[in-house]
């Protein structure tokens, strides 16, 4: 068994928010491994961390024997990622786009030209390989983007929504390509919403929901354990159960935080500022006017301007605090 990807307790936080929460799974050569989950579950962030585009907050992953934390550059040269953004350089032809990335992956000129010819043939791009990418259809762009992601012949290939927005024929070309990669001994990670494609292609699937891995097994076992006949039903069953568990936990948490003692303990200064950001901003504006007013009114005698400046200064501080600390966290 040739393990090409070992993900271990991988975690990614954005501020206080866990986008990926201790995700672990393994995948091996000659396999198409499905990564399923609803929108915003954390699939793309997981992929981006594995591809070293984002830095892991905790845990790690080993890609083709290389640690993403210790050897990010080597990992990038052994991994190919087709992102959901299939942007190309519009003023360059398909071949020029591929040539640019091939050079950045360190391929030598002869080797690179052979590889480009091979991919043009494989992905059926002969008709447009020498045309500028600016006028390509989505299908054409997707094919060039796929070729770009595997230009360096990586052993681990990750496809993020590869058939999204494609017509049936273009989608079939992509699917055939994934199968060929699997047959060639590569590990293909497929992140998708399309359960039919996942069932047709994947040997094993992992389901990510609310940033956590909630299932990881072969398609057959998942269908058997959920007593369903389609992957779509199995997915709904698994995600639904997890969702109700999460809602129940949230309910319990809400119940607990209603206790006055808990409120006193848990409300931090920052959350108070966040909750009262609007009031603080209004207060700062009122204070500015008050400061200006004090400077003209004779209540403080010769100190009226000093007091006025102090009040305006406090207004500025309150305004700045409300502006920068009062932001709601996503």
């Amino acid at each position: 068994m040739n393990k090409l990807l070992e993900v271990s307790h991988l975690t990614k936080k954005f501020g206080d928010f866990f986008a990926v929460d201790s995700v672990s799974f393994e995948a091996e050569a000659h396999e198409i491994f499905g990564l399923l989950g609803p929108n915003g579950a954390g699939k793309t962030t997981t992929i981006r961390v594995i591809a070293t585009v984002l830095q892991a907050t905790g845990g790690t992953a080993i890609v083709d024997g290389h640690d993403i934390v210790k050897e990010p550059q080597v990992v990038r040269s052994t991994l190919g990622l087709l992102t959901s953004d299939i942007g190309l350089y519009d003023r360059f032809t398909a071949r020029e786009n591929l040539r640019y990335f091939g050079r950045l992956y360190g391929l030598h000129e002869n080797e690179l030209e052979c590889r480009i010819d091979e991919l043009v043939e494989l992905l059926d791009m002969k008709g447009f390989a020498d045309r500028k990418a600016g006028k390509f259809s989505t299908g054409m762009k997707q094919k060039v983007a796929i070729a770009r992601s595997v230009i360096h012949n990586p052993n681990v290939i990750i496809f993020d929504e590869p058939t999204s927005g494609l017509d049936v024929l273009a989608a079939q070309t992509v699917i055939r390509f994934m199968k060929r990669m699997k047959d060639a001994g590569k590990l293909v990670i497929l992140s998708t919403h399309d359960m039919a494609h996942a069932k047709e292609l994947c040997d094993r699937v992992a389901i990510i929901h609310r940033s956590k891995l909630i299932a990881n097994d072969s398609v057959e076992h998942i269908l058997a354990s959920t007593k369903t006949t389609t992957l779509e039903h199995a997915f709904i069953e698994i995600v639904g159960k997890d969702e109700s568990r999460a809602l129940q936990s949230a309910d319990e948490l809400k119940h607990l935080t209603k206790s006055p003692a808990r409120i006193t303990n848990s409300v931090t200064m920052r959350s108070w500022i966040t909750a009262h950001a609007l009031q603080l901003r209004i207060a700062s504006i009122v204070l500015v006017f008050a400061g200006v007013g004090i400077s003209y009114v004779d209540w403080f005698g010769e100190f009226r301007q000093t007091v006025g400046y102090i009040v305006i200064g406090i207004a500025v501080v309150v305004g700045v605090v409300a502006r920068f600390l009062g932001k709601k966290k996503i």
Partner: protein
Amino acid sequence: MRGLFTIWKKELVDSIRDKRTLITAVLLPVFLMPAILIGTFKFQEYQVTQTETKPVIVAFNNADSAPALVSFLREQPRVSIVDSQDYQADFESGTIQTYVDIPSDYENLFTLQQPISIHVIEKSSKIDSQTATQHVMVLLQQYSAQVGAARLADQNINPQIISVLAPEIVDVASAQEVGGFFFGLLLPMFIVLFALIGGMYIAIDVSAGEKERKTLEALLLTPASRLVIVTGKFLAVATTASTTIVLSLFSMYAAFKFFPPNLGAGEVVVDLSLSAIFVMLGIGVILAVMFSGLLLSVAIFAKSYKEAQNYITPFYLIAVLPVAILGQIPGFNPTTIFFLIPGVNAVFVIKEVIIGTFNSLHILLTIGSLLVCAVIAIIVASKIYSKEGILFRD
């Protein structure tokens, strides 16, 4: 190194294929700007010539009281005398440019050889009225001097007795120096402008453009480090901006050399020494390098072309305004501290070099300050390229 060269080459080819970069980096500085400048000066010359040869339109009140004076003015080649019933209305309609109010007792006072008060009325809100009035005033003074001299001669007194001084200005500045002074007012400003404009579009294209095209993630997935990516892009921006500077300098120099403007005191002679050209090019290129780093740092923040342009516009004003203001203050002699201010220092050094002053301390301080600023800008840009929040914000 190969990655750096690949990125640099790709960005340059990409920018050459981009019409916007070609227009701002090549077409505007090389052809359009010299054409506009030379065209403006030539138009100014034409206007001055027109003013000098065009007759001034004068009307009189009580012309019959001073026939000799009116006849003197009528004989002048650039004076056209017309009638006016309502001078206010005629000023408005432009049928007269100046109005000479001769007192009714002119002849009597003239005979008595008493001073005669004459009002020359102008409408100062109209340029041609001002010019005409000045011309008429000169003629009236000439007439007064002629009559005065005749009166002295009648009494057998030499008229020259009342001329005590005959002051005359003698300019010791050579034609080259005058040309250098004139060129020094214009050129530094344009160098700063082109250093910014030349790199502006490519800086936006390689940073915010990469995000807008959604190619950034694919680039970050390659083994090239963030520093290599940023440096490659920076070098491409710096190359374009430096090329703009070099092309624009040669283009402006050639334009003023072959089509010298005449600003009243003869043609402006532009003749720079080789060392002056060398220093100016060097400072211009380093200035372009510094601005490239700053432009890139600013543009990386943006997620689209439009947003990047919004960020760069205030930056553009901040960079150009002090240069424009300080560079044009007449008689302003910068102290050494001014040669530490990036951008402003380049203007002062170029001004010095154009008039033939080579101050090594000023040149070295300027180069050092610009280079330090450029290095800081690259480091900042590279740090920004490592910020996930900036790279992946939607």
